[in-house]
């Protein structure tokens, strides 16, 4: 670790109705990987937005390389050497890798763009990073992991002295995560300071030097990563102890009625001959790698995408599901992995989102019964602990975890018997995660049945009664919770069929 490169002191920021940052301190050394953790809405992103000039701070000082600075936009921050790699990647898919890296500062040959030179420079950059990407490839053809590498390459090419990673591993496979860590270690050697926002506990020891925790907009404390335990960090984040053991045995009776049966479902490359059964009161885990076809299977069952063939039975009766409308009518609800695109209607209020799936129950003749709607929503806001000033708040103003709970509320109000949860805890903090786990357990106790798609094996093992493993669009195996282990699941998830 080198010298101090960044000190943020007493940072304060208030939005209408929310004290987003309350006297926050943060410091970063050269060549340090400093993790920033906290629940959703704890203020991590806001703090970084203040640093990179997206928001203006109300109070406090930022000292960067010994000078007090205040950037008025991200471009200024970038020019000074502070670059952020966003969680949602920003790139132009139809341009090549090289064009994306040098966008806005293209090498010129007279008045024409010098593509050859950009390709050459990009290749050199990748060589230095020891990664293998073809600079002439179109951006959209790369995997999410590779796209992220390009973003990092772009950051490095800006001569960054501080790189901020916002949940970089959320969408990566294990090998890609390894590659990313290798790059981060290289960056460390070059004395670049790294701020690493994450929700994954297991990454803390592997890659970070120190970890700072925020809670409700305030700075809680900083630990040395190698001396801290998972429970220490969780306690700091939530102020309470939560720890759940993996499930060891299923409490669902072996002869529980089958509520959903899927037979030989086919829908494109990612869904080939998938068959399975879901029993009443059961959580059926769907494990597999990215791109194994779990989401596609769920969407085909739900009618969101067209299917080619296959039969679906609900409570033993064969049903035709050609649209989400049909699925909802048969009591199936689908919680998407991408809530911004498929889950919430951002410009509408919490209550309007909550009643979206069953507005007909809140009608008074031709008029919407706003009072009834609000009352019903308020019940769920309370029981799910959704953090919102009121049910009339626009959903866009809520944090990710709370948005997810709003989508959940939608299906709970609809009272669906079969719920498909696609990565229900992705990008959600530990506190909200545990809320959602608890809720799922309550739901199955009430006799509902859940299909849970998850890329996190500990989550699969903790929640499922049975586990279906998918690989390359096929079901590669099925395990009961009693026999399942991480190794067995990974074996099935990577097997060639």
């Amino acid at each position: 670790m080198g010298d101090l490169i960044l000190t943020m002191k007493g940072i304060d920021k208030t939005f209408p109705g929310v004290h987003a940052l309350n006297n926050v301190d943060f410091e970063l050394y050269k060549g340090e990987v400093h993790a920033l953790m906290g629940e959703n809405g704890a203020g991590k992103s806001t703090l970084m937005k203040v640093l990179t000039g997206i928001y203006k701070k109300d109070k406090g000082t930022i000292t960067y390389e010994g000078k007090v600075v205040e950037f008025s936009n991200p471009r200024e921050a970038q020019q000074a050497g502070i670059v952020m790699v966003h969680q949602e990647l920003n790139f132009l898919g139809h341009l090549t890798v090289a064009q994306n890296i040098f966008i806005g500062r293209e090498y010129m040959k007279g008045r024409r763009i010098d593509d050859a030179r950009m390709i050459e420079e990009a290749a050199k950059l990748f060589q230095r990073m020891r990664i293998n990407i073809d600079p002439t490839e179109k951006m959209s053809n790369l995997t999410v992991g590779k796209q992220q590498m390009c973003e990092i390459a772009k950051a490095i090419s800006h001569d960054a002295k501080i790189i901020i990673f916002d949940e970089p591993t959320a969408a990566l496979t294990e090998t890609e995560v390894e590659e990313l860590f290798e790059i981060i270690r290289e960056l460390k050697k070059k004395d670049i300071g790294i701020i690493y926002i994450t929700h994954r506990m297991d990454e803390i020891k592997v890659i970070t030097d120190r970890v700072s925790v925020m809670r409700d907009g305030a700075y809680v404390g900083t630990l040395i990563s190698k001396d801290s335990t998972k429970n220490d960090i969780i306690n700091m984040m939530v102020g309470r102890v939560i720890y759940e053991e993996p499930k060891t045995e299923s409490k669902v009776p072996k002869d529980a009625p089958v509520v959903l049966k899927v037979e030989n479902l086919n829908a494109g490359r990612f869904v080939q001959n998938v068959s399975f059964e879901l029993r009443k009161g059961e959580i059926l885990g769907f494990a597999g790698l990215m791109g194994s076809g779990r989401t596609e299977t769920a969407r085909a069952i739900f009618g969101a995408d067209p299917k080619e063939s296959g039969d679906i039975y609900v409570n033993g009766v064969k049903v035709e599901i050609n649209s989400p409308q049909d699925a909802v009518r048969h009591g199936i609800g689908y919680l998407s992995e991408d809530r911004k695109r498929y889950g919430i209607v951002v410009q509408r209020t919490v209550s309007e989102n909550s009643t979206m799936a069953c507005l007909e129950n809140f009608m008074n003749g031709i008029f919407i019964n706003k009072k009834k709607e609000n009352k019903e929503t308020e019940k769920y806001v309370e029981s799910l602990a959704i953090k919102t000033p009121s049910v009339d708040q626009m959903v866009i103003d809520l944090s990710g975890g709370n948005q997810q709970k709003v989508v959940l509320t939608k299906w709970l109000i609809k009272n669906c018997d079969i719920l498909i949860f696609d990565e229900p805890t992705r990008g959600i903090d530990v506190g909200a995660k545990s809320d959602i786990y608890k809720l799922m357990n309550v739901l199955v106790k009430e006799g509902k049945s859940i299909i849970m798609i998850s890329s996190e094996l500990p989550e699969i093992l903790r929640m499922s009664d049975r586990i279906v493993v998918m690989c390359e669009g096929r079901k590669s195996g099925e395990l009961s919770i009693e026999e399942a282990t991480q190794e067995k699941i990974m074996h099935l998830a990577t097997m060639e069929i």
Partner: protein
Amino acid sequence: MYRIKQNPLVRKIGFNRIVLCLVLLVMYGFFALFAKNFVSYNRLLSAMNYAYFLGFLSLGVTFVIATGGIDFSIGPVMFCSAIMSGYLLTHYKWPLWICLIASVAIGALYGTLNGYLVAYRDVPSFITSMAIMQMSKGVASVFTKAQTVSWPQLAEENGWYRNLIKVKAGNTYIPVGLIILLVAAIICSIILNKTKAGRYFLSIGSNKEAVRLSGVNVKKWQMLAYVICGLMAGIAAIFFVAAYTTVQPGYGDQYNNEAIAGCVMGGTSMAGGLASISGTFIGVMIISILQEGILAIGLNKNYQLVITGLIVIAAVYLDVMARRRKY
């Protein structure tokens, strides 16, 4: 600025609408100062003639824009309705009341076609409405063999429909049209804010896919917005002829832009998901007073086009700026 916006009364009415009302007042004051004899009841009635048909167009297209679409066919569709139903009345001697219903039906038919193509066939609304704009002009010309159609005057047989805009009472007129337009605006506002249809229009405009995945029949609702829009164009046709009696085939384009301008000024977002009927209403009033004022000042219609264009740019710019600050 922020403190003003947070005032409970201002929040309730909407900052944007207060600004619009001020614009309307300032504009009226400007013309009162610089145009001869501008401040008179007859001038206002004349301005309102323009506001009635434009108001119906604008109210209708507000629903379409709320769903994130656009309709460039409303002006020519209005003309097509007025021409065809007028031709039925004057040439084929159909009873007046059937012709009035026919006018609304023709508008609704175009709206249905437009909505079907957009919602069920996934054709961009920009393209379909452009096509229907051309089509409706052509249909009207073919139907009347390119003749101008003149609806009867008040004194003539079948002239009572003109009472829809104003009724003579002693020495003065009662602006019936304004009352009808206000009632229509209130009904539209109720539809947009209190019914299932309005809720779905706005939600579809904000995130269609999320609404679809909630099990809502988005195609049906999306199409309905265009049907309402077409229907309103058909009603607008009645108010157009009630004010001006004469319609010529092959025109009507400029009213698209003015109707859409009215919506956008009123705070309806071209991106969909946000709409305001009261805003649209005030927007229409601004355009109508503007066009009357321009004529009163002695400039020709072309100046009005320039100024309307500038106002639209300003309104959209403010809309974009407000959004940028928020998100």
